[in-house]
């Protein structure tokens, strides 16, 4: 049997993603983002995102089919994100996926968004080097070696996973107990008068700044926190610390050294992310780390990850950036893996689960 042709539907946050894969081969990756509509609110507005999904859904499917040069009738299956994510946004994708599956009489796989991020790394692309964040081109789409630690960081989630098998055994080691890392970037950007989304702007103004200029706190890193929250993250204290520091400067009438604040804040986020991820690798004797999520677009995340992993003898894998941010191809790829592993399709009665645990790979 040839590799299954799967269409993946992703709508958990502000990107309507439709991807088509044949096994691990990428045929289309269409993303329609409502990010611009959220910019003036300083963060994703769930109702605005859900309305945008409804309008983007069918045009995105049509575009993906045309880019992949396949017809709906040729598909072997449909995969859709069931959760976690924004409930109202997820429901648009779930409703569309179910109806499409019934209309076409095709099997439907309802999958976990976070596990999808891990699956993104399996996808083979022939993307140009400018889109590749990985320094090692040959790793693109290579099979995953198990077990692997996965660090998933975006505006919606910050999770550290132990993946023993993509389709059958994923464990949550830790996650953020308050803000996601991407949210912290957005909030600090606002504080510094920078536009949304914060990540790229913090990156931009941090150029030339001294990451050691200000020692901002590393959340949940003190010995007493490490006992209970060894692999958990917290960014709300960091955000407050940055706000305090900036206000003190302003109150004293000094000009805020934006480059230093941005670089020091970014360093605090990236340091805690990688310290915990590398600790997980070391503690559990897993010399493999996989990164995913939109925050991986941040240059400093990739740079420090490469540095720390080399030092600790950990093999680092980062999917191409277009597959790190939320997309439908990763959902299709996970669906294809489930099919190739012989898993039965989902029954038609699943829902959108905004808090779907990462241990539930398929619903």
């Amino acid at each position: 049997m040839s590799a299954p042709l799967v269409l993946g539907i992703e709508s958990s946050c502000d990107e309507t993603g439709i991807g088509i894969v044949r096994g691990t081969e990428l045929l289309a990756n269409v993303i329609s983002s409502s990010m611009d509509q959220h910019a003036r609110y300083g963060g994703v507005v769930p109702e605005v995102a859900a309305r945008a999904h409804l309008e983007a859904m069918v045009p995105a499917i049509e575009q993906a089919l045309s880019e992949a040069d396949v017809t709906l009738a040729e598909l072997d299956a449909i995969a859709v994100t069931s959760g976690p994510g924004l409930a109202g946004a997820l429901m648009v994708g779930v409703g569309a996926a179910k109806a499409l599956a019934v209309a076409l009489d095709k099997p439907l796989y309802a999958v976990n968004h976070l596990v999808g991020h891990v699956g993104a790394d399996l996808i083979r692309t022939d993307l140009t080097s400018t889109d590749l964040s990985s320094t090692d081109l040959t790793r693109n789409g290579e099979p995953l070696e198990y077990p692997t630690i996965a660090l998933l960081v975006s505006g919606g989630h910050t999770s550290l996973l132990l993946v023993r098998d993509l389709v059958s055994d994923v464990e949550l080691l830790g996650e953020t107990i308050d803000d996601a890392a991407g949210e912290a970037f957005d909030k600090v950007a606002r504080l510094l008068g920078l536009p949304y989304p914060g990540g790229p702007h913090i990156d931009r103004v941090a150029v030339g700044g001294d990451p050691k200029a200000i020692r901002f706190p590393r959340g949940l890193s003190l010995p007493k926190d490490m006992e209970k929250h060894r692999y958990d993250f917290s960014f709300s204290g960091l955000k407050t610390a940055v706000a305090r520091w900036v206000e003190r400067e302003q109150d004293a009438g000094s000009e805020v050294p934006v480059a230093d604040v941005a670089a020091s804040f970014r360093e605090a986020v990236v340091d805690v992310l990688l310290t915990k991820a590398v600790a997980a690798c070391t503690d559990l004797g897993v010399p493999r780390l996989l990164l995913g999520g939109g925050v991986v677009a941040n240059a400093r995340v990739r740079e420090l990850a490469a540095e720390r992993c080399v030092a600790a003898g950990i093999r680092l894998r980062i999917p191409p950036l277009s597959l790190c941010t939320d997309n439908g191809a990763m959902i299709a790829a996970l669906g294809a893996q489930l099919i190739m592993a012989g898993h039965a399709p989902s029954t038609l009665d699943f829902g959108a689960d905004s808090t779907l645990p990462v241990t539930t790979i398929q619903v």
Partner: protein
Amino acid sequence: MLLAIDTSAGTSVAVVDREGGILAEHSSDDTRRHAEVIGTLIARSIADAGIEVADLSGVVAGMGPGPFTGLRVGIAAARAFALGAGKLIIPAVSHDAIAFGCTAPTLVATDARRREVYWSTYSGSDAAGLPIRTNGPGLVRVGELETAVDGFAGYRLLEAATVSAGALGMLAETMFANGRAFDDAFDGRPGALYLRSPDVTMSSGPKRVTS
């Protein structure tokens, strides 16, 4: 023959035929489980009608008004089904399905949550049997219907907790049979009838954390 889907209240799916009437209809009154039930209700309606997807000529989507989260599930499903089946998508006003068959002046009111109601008025039905919408759909606070609707006392109030996809489908069949345009209510842009802007607060700039 049409597949009709409406999730402006609960979830309702039907297969209808101009001559044969409602061939199958399956509904759930649950106003919180649209995403869960939509696929099964579509599959059962088609199976019970004893037809193939290819037999359909179009898919009718109830475009609201209705609580957004659920409403979108049905519209997304109708559009995706139409795409998958290669059929026409036909947008229809959900209130029209409630008023379908009314002979006297009728005021349709449905729950909009947050202590508000959606409303539409109808003067009766035309020669083809189609409801004549004279005003709406609109949105008012609970208890203000009487002042918001002109000539309130002259209407028979029809408060509906459910919308029948069978009625919606037959409404569309009747419109089609009589050569009526489908998109009058949508200004040529058949989108969901939200009637309410997304609930958002503009960012007022960062708040101080130190006093």
